[in-house]
């Protein structure tokens, strides 16, 4: 098994206990280091379930899911939690941040559960705090740092960028973004996706990006269309 594949899925089938047919049926999926995949599909098509499977939160599937060469189904729940903390940065649609922590503390939070990411952040900027500040600057949030603004006072666009900084800190191999732009207007949306692409490419990080918005597909190396219960068709399109 080569480790150049960050995500490797083979013969993945998943259905909820009281469900007829398969919610997910993915014969094969590979995500190479540094590449990006756009995951698309209507609501209920199993996008969130696939993300839960890949991030090791959901078990009970058949087939195989590997992250950075580790087969999730062979790991204990605790080891999967560790794997997620070490190798995966997550960005959600909204409510990404703890409102009672400052933006810098929110970014640094990702390093609390992973020694690996803490060490990497320290190696890069000297301290987790400085790395968080560097990333926030990189993502155009210098004014947030200067004004020492409360996290809950940030605009949604700013909050999503803070979340991106948290996903990026400590250079995890994979970033999973679950509809991160759906709360943003189109101008902010494109800016956010551009920034995220730029940062992941600069770090050689793989990106798994979920959205129902087909307009974004052109930014990504590959696209996977999920169709829900009828079974998923895999359409990987080189860019």
């Amino acid at each position, binding site marked *: 098994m080569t480790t150049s594949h960050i995500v490797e899925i083979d013969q993945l089938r998943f259905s909820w206990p009281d469900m007829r047919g398969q919610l997910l049926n993915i014969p094969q999926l590979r995500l190479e280091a540094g590449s990006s995949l756009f995951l698309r599909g209507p609501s209920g098509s199993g996008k969130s379930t696939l993300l*839960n499977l890949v991030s090791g939160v959901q078990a009970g599937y058949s087939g195989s899911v590997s992250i950075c060469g580790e087969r999730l189904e062979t790991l204990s729940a605790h080891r999967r939690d560790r794997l997620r903390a070490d190798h995966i940065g997550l960005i959600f649609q909204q409510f990404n941040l703890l*409102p009672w922590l400052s933006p810098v503390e929110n970014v640094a939070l990702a390093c609390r559960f992973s020694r690996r990411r803490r060490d990497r952040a320290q190696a890069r900027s000297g301290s987790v705090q400085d790395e968080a500040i560097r990333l926030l600057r990189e993502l155009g949030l210098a004014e947030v740092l200067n004004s020492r603004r409360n996290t809950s006072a940030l605009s949604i666009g700013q909050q999503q960028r803070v979340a991106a900084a948290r996903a990026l800190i400590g250079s995890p191999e994979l970033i999973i973004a*679950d509809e991160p732009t759906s709360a943003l207007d189109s101008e902010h949306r494109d800016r956010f996706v551009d920034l995220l692409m730029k940062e992941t490419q600069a770090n050689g990080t793989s990106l798994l990006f979920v959205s129902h918005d087909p307009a974004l597909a052109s930014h990504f190396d590959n696209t996977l269309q999920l169709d829900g219960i009828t079974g998923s068709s895999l359409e990987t399109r080189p860019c």
Partner: protein
Amino acid sequence: MLIDLLWRSLLNRRATAVLSILTIGLSVALLAGVEKVRQDMREGFFNTVSGTDLIVGARTGQVELLLYSVFHLGSATNNIRWKSFQRVANDPAVEWSVPLSLGDSHKGFRVVGTTSAFFDHYRYGRENALKLSAGRAFNGIHQVTLGAEAASRLGYHTGDKVVIAHGLGSTSFAQHKDQPFTVVGILEPTGTPVDQSLLVSLESITAIHLGWRAGVPMPGLSVDPSTLSETDLTPKEITAFLLGMKSKTQVFQMQRAINRFSAEPLLAILPGVALQELWQVIGSAEKALLAVSACVVLAGLTGMLGVLLTGLQQRRRELALLRAIGASPFNLLCLVVMEAVLLTAAGIAVGLSLLWTLLILAQQGLSEAFGLYLTLGWPDGLWQILAMVLAAGALAGTIPAWQAWRYTLADGLTPRT
């Protein structure tokens, strides 16, 4: 490693957190307060007579003797002869003796005829001697030294005149009007029945009964108070007496000797044993008190549980987010249990500070108003009780923690709220 996160999260929810802490604090203050009052009452009760080795009276039950001689409850069925008292008191093994003559009263307060030895040898609490807050001890006839409560309730000061009634009860018709007493001193509060007593000399008791037969003044036999100094006022009878022995090893020997006294039937009791027997009768109330306060703590913890559970619904997103970042469900479970423990511990601290502040403030007032003497000391076994409260708090925390565990497993990375 999550403790500072927990702290920041709690700070964010400080209104509800403070509310839980206060709920627990109040119930802990009540529980610890009840325990404190219970132990101090018990202590006070058992130390009503300390330093006395034997109490001697006419033959009766040991609880009865204790009740009428020490607590001034009920009355003696028989008196004992002065000669008997003298024979026991002059025994070489006896270090000191205090005779007591009861049976008269003043406005509901008992008059105790005794000698100055009472002031020297009566001990209460942890070997505390009687102290005067004003004036002096009586040293002649028609002089009275008042207990603290009797003085304050009746509003008497040194120099005031007091008329003693024959018999007990506040509305006695037979009054010793011809021989009024003068208040010469007032004792400091002790928390014992001494506070409700009027202490006079045995000679005074004899004097006011001169010319009386069977509890009523005989016409034509009234005495001229001016001739009293020439009269022999040695009492013929007393009600009971307290004994202190030179050596503790002689106590049982003396008790046996008195109980076999041939001249008249006497009973000698060990105060501690009799107090223990009496406490068994009245002590069940303290257990009920403790049970009630335990229920209050239970109510306090239930309140905290409610606050934690409602808070958890609001925190569902927070927990899902921490899980996404890499916290395991176990981490989150610890977080919630830790929160419950922290709130309970803070509640205990608040409760104890509250209680001791109240104790300091109310100590004086309670002793004056209720004769309840509360010390500032730490009650025995309170650590164990508090540890149990803390454990109960942690246990209560496992319910929302289990709920959090379920949420995080069901929610995956995206909370369904």
